[in-house]
């Protein structure tokens, strides 16, 4: 067994190392979950499969870094960037969503790909396409839990994500707008008939998604620097979504944790059998295999079709 492990370069199984990988995976899962969260919000409220969520993360981070580089303090940049994201939400609702009402879902999906391409060009046109370091004072030391080494930045991200989810949950349950959003998510026409203005709801929900994108962008950006690959990394949120279900916020979080931990563990313990880099597709294959048994995802709504 020892020799076997040595040939394939598998690390010998030790509990602390296992936990280190597991926790590292869970932390990157939190990041995926942050992106998936913004997606679920939009899908629930407008059944738009928002492919541009990943680029929105990049766009928000680019703006945030750009304002900081102009010499503004971090809190002012945050508020300004939030303003930009709200403006973006209003523009998208006016220019893209409103004319495409009642079109098939695939058209709206394609339109969001168009938005993604546009935003990518727009953001980099304004702020340039070189890698920008982002430092907003997130601690980057390591702490030891027994023998396992944990990045403080990861813990911080996890804390921020939990606070974010808590805030969103409170917002959805205890405010007037939150109730309206839930009503729209339940049934568009019923919501319209009791006087909830759909267009405004869409603007709000895209703004909230923009806010989530901004938080995710700051987290990702301080970890990896603000660069285009953020948008590619955000694609990992898609298997998280199919695992968790498109319409469930807890699904996005738990799916993110499962995918993050699963792919890191698989890469470390199984990857060397296949020549490494299985992280790229592992999440998708897991999600696909999972769907074969539970087509609506972990927490998604079961679709009942009638002829």
């Amino acid at each position, binding site marked *: 067994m020892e020799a076997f492990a040595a040939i394939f370069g598998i690390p010998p199984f030790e509990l602390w190392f296992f936990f280190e990988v597991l926790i590292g995976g869970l932390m990157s899962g939190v990041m995926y979950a942050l992106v998936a969260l913004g997606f679920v919000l939009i899908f629930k409220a407008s059944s738009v499969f928002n492919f541009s969520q990943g680029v929105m993360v990049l766009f928000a981070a680019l703006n945030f870094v750009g304002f900081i580089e102009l010499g503004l303090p971090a809190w002012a940049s945050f508020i300004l960037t939030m303003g930009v994201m709200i403006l973006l939400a209003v523009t998208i609702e006016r220019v893209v969503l409103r004319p495409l009402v009642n079109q098939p879902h695939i058209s709206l999906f*394609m339109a969001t790909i168009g938005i993604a391409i546009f935003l*990518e060009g727009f953001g980099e046109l304004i702020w340039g396409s070189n890698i920008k370091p982002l430092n907003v004072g997130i601690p980057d030391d390591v702490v030891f839990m027994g023998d396992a080494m944990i990045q403080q930045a990861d813990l911080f991200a996890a804390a921020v994500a939990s606070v974010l989810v808590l805030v969103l949950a409170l917002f959805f349950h205890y405010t007037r707008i939150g109730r309206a959003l839930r009503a729209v998510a339940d049934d568009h026409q019923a919501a319209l008939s009791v006087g909830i203005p759909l267009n405004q709801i869409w603007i709000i929900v895209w703004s909230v998604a923009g806010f989530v994108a901004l938080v995710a962008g700051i987290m990702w950006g301080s970890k990896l620097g603000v660069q285009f690959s953020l948008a590619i990394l955000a694609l990992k949120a898609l*298997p998280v979504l199919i695992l968790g279900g498109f319409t469930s916020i807890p699904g996005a979080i738990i799916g993110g944790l499962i995918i993050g931990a699963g792919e890191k563990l698989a890469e470390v313990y199984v990857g060397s059998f296949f020549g490494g880099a299985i992280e790229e597709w592992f999440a998708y294959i897991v999600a696909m295999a999972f769907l074969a048994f539970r087509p609506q995802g972990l927490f998604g709504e079961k679709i009942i079709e009638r002829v």
Partner: protein
Amino acid sequence: MFYREAGQFKTSYAGDQQMLPIPLDRAFVIAIAAIAIFVVPVIGSQYWLESILLPVMILSIAALGLNILTGYCGQLSLGTGGFMAAGAYMSYKVATNMPEFLPVWIPIIVGGLFAAMIGIVFGLPSLRIKGFYLAVATLAAQFFLLWMFQKIPWFVNDSISGVPSAPPETILGFYVTGPNASPEAKYLFVLAFVIILAILARNMARSRIGRSWMAIRDMDIAAELIGIRPLKTKLSAFAISSFYCGIAGALWSFCYISTVEPTAFDIDRSFQVLFMVIVGGLGSVLGAFLGAIFIFLLPIFLNNVPAWFGLELATDVVSHIELMVFGAAIIFFLIVEPHGLARLWQITKEKMRLWPFPH
């Protein structure tokens, strides 16, 4: 005035069931094919043949394939690039290991068949999941296949660089693949595939199999009730679509870029082909061609526009603006003409029927 359907009566079943029942349509299509075969290779410059027409034709084969799956059978797929790569790598493997006397089109067909097999495997989830869930699941094909071809050296004959160049092959003494081939030879070789595959697609779409695809697309439960088997229908759509994509991938590697490399088939390629299908028109053979022409030429056009106005812009600024215009153009198109270029063509024909006296 010039284009009319009235007064043309069919007196035989064969006449009624022709692929293009209207004589003027038929003449038009035959004329285009004749020009493409006999005139274009003679008058076309190397730039036009090699850098414009060749990729447009190959991508329209891929778009035809995706149109079969998405447009006719209603299964959204984002894995086109992966299936193209499957075709490219398998044809390379076959072409470099087969006996000399076999013709060059055999490895390309084998590549297509291999892609079809892979398509069936990745189509299996379509029996349980639908819509966007399926679209994301097909991304698995995209990432997994590209990873597989990069990691398994068997596919590239253990080449050290991992990016082998396409093997030069001949037909009747002319090189048609690899770096030595003349643009005209490559053009005609690809054109043969385009014509055959387009005729096949058109005929499949209006025969039993195409009708069952469309029934599944429009309402799968109702289709099942009238006796169409979802398993057979969906998997056949996946297989045939991947066959087309595989052939497109093989031609792309062999004739256009002359190397077999994974970056040519990344996720951007999948989206490019999807754009072609949507902009061209879902469920239309003509749309696949129009979409391929439009999407491929738009960036080239955008690249040249600033120069016409005498503007000198930095290349990265141009590429950013290009992205913006491209994204905006897609949104504009979806809003203004959601049924694509094929529908615009149909409207033009309807106008022509009454021209010049519309009322």
